[in-house]
């Protein structure tokens, strides 16, 4: 049903062209399956695109030093010139937002941590990490933040999306968006 909501105005906008035939222009080419696989680095919270491979926090601790992470983030992830990777020391809190803006504790999904390391780290050598290494580094950061407590726990495409991040259900979704709607119902500004 949601599909209809945007398709209808869309069809009206494009007028008879869209209704007459599809595809309309025949411009562009079809990518090969291999191309799509190589390009597609997006990872859904459900983890369906996660690749084969696995890792542990134990292995991640070594990689954190070997891959240069510690050089910018500090040897313990708290004392570098790059952003802090370990929750702020605020003691026991009932709301994980109080740990600060630290990806491996604030993110509702462990997939976001995996995805960001995979696409954006390390600075200057992005995309160089193997899937096993990304699993291990993700595990290590989750371990440093007490999200997981076993440094031998194996993270892979099945176990990673199941990690229960403390903010899993503790975040505000953006509202459904439609053209011409006010920002917030009942808010005059």
């Amino acid at each position: 049903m949601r599909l209809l909501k945007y398709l209808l105005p869309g069809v009206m906008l494009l007028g008879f062209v869209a209704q007459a035939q599809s595809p309309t222009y025949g411009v562009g080419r079809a990518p090969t399956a291999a191309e799509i696989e190589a390009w597609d680095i997006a990872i859904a919270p459900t983890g369906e695109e996660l690749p084969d491979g696995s890792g542990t926090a134990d292995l991640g601790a070594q990689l954190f030093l070997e891959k240069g992470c510690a050089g910018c983030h500090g040897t313990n992830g708290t004392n570098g010139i790059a952003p802090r990777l370990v929750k702020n020391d605020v003691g026991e809190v009932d709301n994980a937002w109080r740990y600060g803006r630290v990806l491996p504790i604030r993110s509702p999904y462990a997939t976001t941590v995996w995805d960001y390391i995979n696409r954006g780290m390390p600075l200057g050598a992005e995309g160089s990490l193997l899937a096993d290494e990304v699993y291990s580094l993700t595990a290590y950061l989750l371990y440093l933040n007490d999200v997981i407590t076993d440094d031998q726990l194996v993270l892979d495409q099945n176990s990673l999306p199941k990690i229960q991040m403390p903010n899993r259900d503790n975040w505000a979704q953006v509202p459904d968006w439609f053209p011409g709607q006010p920002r917030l119902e009942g808010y005059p500004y």
Partner: protein
Amino acid sequence: MGPKKQNRREFLKQGAAIAGGAAVGAASQSASAQLPGPEGFLHGRDDIVAYGQRSRFIESKRIPHGGRHSPDTFGLDFHIATPLQDQHGVITPSSLFYMGTTRGSYIPDIDPEKHRLMIHGLVDNPLVFTMEELKRLPSVTRMHFVECAGNRSNRRHTTVQETHGMTSNAEWTGVLLSTLLKEAGVKEGADWIVAEGVEEVKGASSIPMTKAMDDTLLAYSMNGEPVRPQQGFPLRMLAPGFEGIFNVKWLRRIKVVDQYYMTYNDYGHLTQDPATAALGYQIGPKSVIVHPSGGQTLPGAGYYQVSGLAWSGGGKVARVEVTTDGGETWFDAEIRGEPQAMAHTLFAFEWEWDGSPCELQSRCIDEIGQVQPSRAEVAEFWNQPADQPPRVRGQDNSIQPWRIESDGSIHNAIA
């Protein structure tokens, strides 16, 4: 008049006859000696024939914004603000367009001949386009602003560049994303897209299909030339009226998906509060007086044209109201030109300053009836404690007050 002209012409003729070119030169020098003239004459230069440059007397420049220097220790550019105070129209020059990046970014050095855009995911026909192919498709040319979520005035700011310089406006040409999505054939259940750039962090944002199919534009042209590298050359997505981060630069890939992907960009805008989330998505109605503005000094009492910019993520600017007495009385400013949807709109009014202290403000009302609030109004709406400074939830679209002292100096009067 006729005889006089004739006399002068004859005089010049005689002079020329007597002393050749030198006499003509002397005559024109004596006639113009009392007028201000140029400091000199620039000889043609091949590079400036090929690509022009501004006057050496113009020093208008962008500045790093938000307390982190650009470039930073790593050579990354982060947030850079445009000098709104030097601008008189609605187009931001491409060289001065504000810039924001996800975590700080190097600028990808992209050969447009090698650049490709892929559309895949929940579509019937995944497609790859070259830049030339994108340019073959039906195009639209539209004015749109882009604004950073961090464009938030605070008491430490003195100039409009600091308070509002993280927004800019350009004319963009490109292909509507809806054209490409229809060509690819969107499958049922595909409620979102993930748009991704090629910078080293490969910044990606989740965008609702409703927006993707409405007015989202893939621009290859900006202000009459290819989109600048700092703005996403060769291809930039514009999600008009959405916060800056959704306007993905160096666009390489659009994946059509069935869920919100919680990318790193999405995570960066995450909040616990649903109202804050809603108010940090589509830019609200907003305006600011630019001439005159903070840090400037009025030379004295008398006539001034006051002008500024208004915009909204909700559509066109319908009206701009202004006050010169700190909000006691409001009157309509004149809209200059035809307002465009999700575009900076120029407003102005004629003002006679009597030389006494006063406060200038403007407020934007957009076509869907949203009204730009004062900070006090926001505080009242949310029942914020009166003894604390007002806090604007989500993207800050509150009214900017400029206080003018009797010595003509202008100050940021934000609460």
